[in-house]
């Protein structure tokens, strides 16, 4: 085995890779764009993204200050989440206008207060109002319904408590403090039979925005390994064959295996460069919480598992070489395979967002296991014991894919000789 020819082939391929604008786009620009978009679009800000609902209202009896519809409107205007108003309110002239605004997408929610609403509220009778919610988008509908329902529930509870306290103070008369407290609690029990406190329980590991960006950054490295690994390997040999240089290589005193090693090395180095660019950009530009320490055994093990994942994808690329006759064909087949896998294997799209029937792909795809191992180690601080189970499936995937790929490569070389 001579290293100079192997390095020569690898350096030649790397120069070719990083001198091609399209390749630079897909190897460096695309992943950084994707990470940026993930951070901006899909990663919630600290404390969550505040929601403001465009709200249109109409009252058949007008809006008197602090009575009936006027009171509801004023309270709605006062509600803030993270400094942002929850409802942006516009008053319309008819109930038809309210329905039209919601139907036409000009408002998220519409409230119509019928005549008698204020009187019923003042007397302590049930007061009815109509709520119109923008349908169509199921997720959006659920959010609006939750916000409006939550607001009205809280409003009702506060009104109930106000009425209870008023009743105790004025209707019940002279009772002791203890009796008043007993009556107050009993009446509160009637108004609110079950009291509950909602507390969001986020997995500790995903609790911060920095960790979520770290999750996406490592996921993008997985996508790169899949795309560049498979496409790079599938075209590496075929491009030489198509150009006629593979025959020229074989006339030099080197073995086909040295050619293959040089080609594999070039793809691996380009994957490492792409991965390093993702991490550096994610950490420095987007504050991703990624802590790689070469002295940490878990980190080194995860890097090795990722390397095996890269070898597996290179093997898959070589397998494609068996079927493709041209660089365009190889690249086309690799692209057709990798695009759906990007969305269905949990590399950058969280598994819970994948349809139930397709989640098995994320569970069995070895590269996902490799990426999860890296995430666990360098983002979430997992130890060797926690990521070790990922090693065997990725190792098996790498051995099987690369072995079949080598058989394909032998076949390709055989065609030349």
């Amino acid at each position, binding site marked *: 085995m*001579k290293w*100079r*020819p192997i*390095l*020569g*082939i690898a*350096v*030649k391929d790397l*120069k*070719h890779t990083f*001198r*091609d604008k399209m390749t630079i786009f897909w190897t460096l620009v695309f992943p950084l764009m994707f990470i940026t978009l993930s951070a901006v679009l899909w990663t919630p800000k600290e404390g969550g993204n505040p929601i403001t609902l465009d709200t249109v209202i109409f009252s058949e009896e007008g809006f008197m200050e602090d009575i009936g519809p006027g009171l509801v409107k004023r309270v709605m205007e006062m509600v803030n989440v993270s400094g942002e108003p929850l409802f942006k309110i516009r008053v319309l002239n008819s109930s038809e206008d309210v329905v039209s605004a919601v139907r036409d997408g000009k408002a998220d929610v519409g409230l119509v207060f019928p005549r008698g609403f204020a009187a019923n509220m003042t007397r302590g009778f049930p007061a009815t109002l109509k709520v119109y919610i923008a349908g169509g988008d199921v997720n959006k509908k659920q959010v609006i319904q939750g916000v409006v329902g939550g607001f009205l529930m809280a409003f009702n509870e506060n009104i109930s408590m106000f009425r209870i306290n008023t009743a105790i103070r004025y209707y019940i008369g002279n009772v002791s403090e203890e009796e008043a407290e007993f009556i107050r609690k009993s009446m509160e029990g009637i108004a609110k039979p079950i009291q509950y406190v909602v507390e969001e329980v986020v997995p500790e590991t995903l609790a911060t925005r920095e960790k979520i960006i770290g999750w996406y950054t490592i996921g993008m490295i997985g996508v790169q390994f899949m795309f560049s690994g498979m496409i790079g390997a599938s075209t590496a040999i075929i491009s030489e064959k198509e*150009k*006629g*240089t593979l*025959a*020229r*290589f*074989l*006339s*030099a*005193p*080197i073995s086909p295996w040295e050619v293959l090693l040089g080609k594999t090395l070039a793809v691996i180095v380009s994957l490492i460069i792409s991965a390093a660019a993702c991490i550096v950009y994610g950490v420095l530009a987007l504050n991703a919480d990624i802590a790689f320490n070469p002295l940490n055994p878990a980190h080194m093990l995860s890097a090795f598992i990722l390397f095996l994942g890269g070898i597996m994808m290179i093997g898959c690329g070589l397998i494609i070489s068996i079927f493709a006759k041209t660089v365009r064909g190889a690249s086309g087949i690799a692209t057709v395979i990798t695009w759906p896998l990007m969305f269905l294997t949990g590399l950058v799209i969280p598994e819970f967002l994948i349809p139930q029937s397709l989640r098995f792909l994320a569970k069995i795809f070895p590269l996902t296991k490799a990426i999860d191992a890296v995430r666990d180690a360098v983002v979430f601080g997992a130890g060797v014991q926690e990521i070790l189970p990922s090693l065997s499936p990725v190792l098996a995937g790498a051995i099987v894919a690369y072995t079949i790929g080598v058989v394909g490569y032998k076949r390709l070389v055989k065609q*030349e*000789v």
Partner: protein
Amino acid sequence: MLMDAVEIIGLTKYYNGFKALDRVSFKVRYGEIFGLLGPNGAGKTTLLRILAGILEESEGTAKVDRYHPRSIEARQLTGYCPQESIVYDDHTALENLMFYASLYDIPGGEARRRAMRLLELVGLDDKANVKVGKFSGGMKKRLNLAASLINEPKIVILDEPTTGLDPAIRRELWDLIKGLKDEGRAILIATHYMEEAEYLCDRVAIMDSGRIVALDTPEELKRKIGDLSIVELKVSKWSEGLVEALKPYSEEGPVAEEDSIRLYTKNPDPILPKIIESVLASGSRVSSVSIVEPTLEDVFIKLTGRRLRE
């Protein structure tokens, strides 16, 4: 006694049952330019690829110096320049040669020295750091040749090195190749240009359908035409009908090309008036009639009944 550079005996190559080479035998000496002349599909490239260690022979033996062509030793001794451009457009001329030097395990400093010397030899030293994508076809061919010499081969295998080049650039490359011969190297060159074979080669093997149909010096080969005279007619226009009408007057069948028709006959004088009559009858006019020297193409036609560029 100096060893033969190349010795092949009964070399045969099958591709999926198709016989691309059929019991080919010859020897090439050091300091000799040996040409393989034949039309496309004659088996020239297959033969050169076997000698370059790329293809395996099906039957027979081939030796490069004293080694099997696929041995590491043989591949160290040979430099192969295929028909296709083997240089990379996104690399500079120097980078291309440095890359090919790495395939021969030549250390960096030595590789650079050789590359610069070769660039000078092929007249591209001022373009060493220019990307090959900006090169003309002729410059690429010269760089191709330089790449095949990076390992300082004793045996240079050139597969149609001047195809597609204009005559002036072709002649420049011929001079380069002659220079390599003068250094004592053995040169094997495949071509379908008869003038290239005549100008360059000490000996020429004429190949057709995988076989060698004649092998000798260009002069001796031309003598194989024997007592046939070659009548070349320049006509204003030729047609299939005219060629058909002239057939009875040519022993090897008339050969038409652009504005001329060549006829092969033992005794031209009595048939000349009839030939001119036939031309006029076809509606064409005769611009000139001459008896010309035979070329290797004429030899090929005599031997195979077909033209080189059919």
